[in-house]
């Protein structure tokens, strides 16, 4: 077993009883192609080092060669589980750069779609998280309920995963007929299904044993490492961009922000789970007060923003998605920088994993809900 440590020296060397284990990039629970180099003593983790970059597709560089509208479908490919919020982050940045006024209805639609996307994304998280902890069945249930949202999105924009729906200056089209009714049906169905998930998994004693006190991050550490979203709120920091720095039409709605206390796997999972309920509530509010009007502002065929730079951020299901755009006055962005929350959260992994065992490692990775498409971009 020492052969591998010779090939790839570990800083400080391996201890007498230590073993170097490569978790991933081919591993069932690393959510794609994450590689974590684990130094373990028995099963206890002495050190965990995440190694990323297996899914790098040059998003930022490719964007520089494309025009502003053309980048929109590309942003879908960053965080493919929550494509709508990515698009939203990007179009908000361009609109900020242009100083563009977006029609009122489009703003409300953006909130509606982003919240539906959040529920869909959290459902995927819930399923995979349960799968990581060895419960297979919740995954299938979560995917079953997510199908309702995907159907809505398919009718809305014709795609089920990479939507290409947000446009600079609004959204592509208005809601299709029947969307309102189907969404309300979904809102009626979902609370009972969430209770089922709770009974099946979130209140299960084995789950509690597996998650309480695991992967603890204090509020100070979470802030210091730049955590955001449920990963930050799980540690008890009351910060949500939708409420504290509202974009689109979020300032018109009441938002409940669930908070954790201990910053362990249980609290992070609790925040995400409760966020689904909060989002359902928000969706209902939007449906009640959807204004009439245009959904897309008039924009020139070739978009040439004035030279300058902006930073725009939104609250994605995973945390703060930030877009830093530099324009040199041409039709293509001069520089696009994507701040991916999953990438930032991966930095917390060594801190969280230390002292726990390999089985907990899987729970921790599940609880910060990383999407490798976003980490590597």
């Amino acid at each position: 077993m020492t052969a591998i440590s010779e090939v790839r020296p570990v800083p400080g060397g391996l201890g007498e009883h230590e073993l170097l284990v490569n978790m991933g990039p081919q591993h069932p629970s690393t959510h794609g192609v994450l590689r974590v180099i684990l130094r373990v003593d028995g099963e206890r983790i002495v050190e965990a080092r995440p190694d990323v970059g297996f899914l790098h597709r040059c998003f930022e560089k490719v964007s520089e060669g494309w025009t502003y509208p053309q980048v929109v479908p590309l942003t879908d490919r960053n965080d493919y589980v929550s494509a709508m919020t990515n698009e939203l982050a990007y179009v908000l940045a361009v609109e900020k750069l242009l100083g563009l006024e977006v029609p009122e209805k489009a703003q409300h639609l953006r909130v509606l779609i982003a919240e539906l996307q959040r529920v869909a994304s959290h459902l995927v998280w819930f399923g995979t998280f349960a799968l990581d902890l060895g419960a297979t069945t919740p995954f299938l249930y979560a995917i079953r309920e997510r199908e309702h949202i995907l159907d809505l999105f398919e009718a809305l924009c014709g795609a089920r995963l990479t939507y290409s729906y947000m446009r600079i200056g609004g959204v592509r089209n208005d809601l299709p007929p029947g969307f309102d009714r189907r969404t309300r049906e979904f809102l009626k169905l979902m609370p009972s299904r969430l209770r089922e998930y709770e009974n099946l998994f979130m209140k299960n004693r084995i789950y509690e044993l597996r998650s309480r006190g695991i992967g603890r991050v204090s509020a100070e550490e979470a802030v210091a490492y730049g955590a955001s979203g449920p990963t930050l709120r799980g540690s008890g920091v009351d910060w949500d961009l939708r409420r504290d720095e509202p974009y689109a039409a979020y300032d018109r709605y009441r938002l409940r922000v669930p908070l954790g206390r201990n910053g362990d796997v249980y609290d992070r999972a609790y925040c995400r789970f409760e966020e689904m309920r909060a989002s359902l509530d928000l969706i209902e509010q939007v449906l009640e007060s959807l204004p009439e009007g245009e959904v897309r502002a008039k924009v020139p065929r070739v978009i040439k923003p004035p030279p300058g730079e902006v930073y725009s951020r939104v609250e994605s299901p995973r945390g703060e998605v930030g877009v830093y755009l530099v324009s040199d006055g041409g039709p293509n962005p001069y520089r696009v920088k994507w701040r991916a929350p999953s990438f930032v959260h991966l930095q917390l992994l060594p801190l969280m994993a230390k002292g726990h065992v390999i089985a907990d490692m899987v729970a921790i990775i599940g609880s910060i809900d990383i999407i490798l498409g976003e980490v590597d971009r």
Partner: protein
Amino acid sequence: MLTDIAARLQALFDQVHLWCSQSAFWSGVFAVGWSLFKVVLIIAFMVVNVLVLVWLERKVSARIQSRLGPMRVSRPHGWAQSLADMVKLLGKEDIIPRSADRALFVIAPIVSFTAALLVYVVVPMGPSAVVSDLNIGMLYLAAVTSFTVMGVLMAGWGSNSKWTLLGAMRGAASIISYEIPMVLAVLGVVMLAGSLSTTAIVQAQSGLWNIVLQPIGFLVFLAALFAELNRVPFDMAEAESELVSGFNTEYSGLRFAFFFLAEYANLVALSAIGVTLYFGGWQGPVLPPLAWFLIKTYAFIVLVMWIRWTLPRVRIDQLLSFGWKVLLPASLVNLAVTGIYLLWV
């Protein structure tokens, strides 16, 4: 018609038996031949059951998960799926990792399989349908079931891979913590029956099933059974989402099929034991004993599958503390209560 054939076979058997017992040599040949026949019978029983079970497991899990499950291979409901899978596994390339310990790697699946096979010896499927009615049946069982972990350990070490090693070590570490409570729980039943023989245990339940008298013992047995069978919530050695595939990560093709076979064969065997110990074995009205035995065993198996597809996995140290701090005291309480019951009631 059937009884007619059975009577003729019985007559033929008696004749051969009589003829063979005339000389020492031929009676020896007869004994060996008869044992071999029994072995072949067990293996056939086992393989058929496993093929049905793999399909059943996939169907039960599919139903629970709002899916259809296998549907393509033959109607109705793709019942021939396991046959197709078996053929596929046989056609796979046989891979032995270069750094593996060849001997251990090759023997491990056979050990696992044999351990599963040995349990069948004492499973009573009817009043006289037991391969060997050992008077130390339960003792034999306790010895044989712990043998399975040898296969796991050999596979894990022999593969010379880190994941398999971790899986094997988990299997080896957890065995004592669930074997002892299991045996202690079974002791309660043995005390009630006053015998270690499985047939005697079944006969002792002609009035009241042991599940009524031994509810705590049954729960302890059930929990230990999951650990023994390597199933969620206690599938420590395999732990798909943690250890890739645990001890059998490096196996493929026929050798993997043997592990697979052993796992499900163990499921049948231990479920049959569970039925024997707590649900009155082959006893029941109207239907023949074998039918009752199969009905009860399959009901038990469905219960085991249902639990497996509901619960998440515990952690290895939690299994150990659960075994020592919950299962062991519970089984001791059960033993004490049974003793008091036998003394005064």
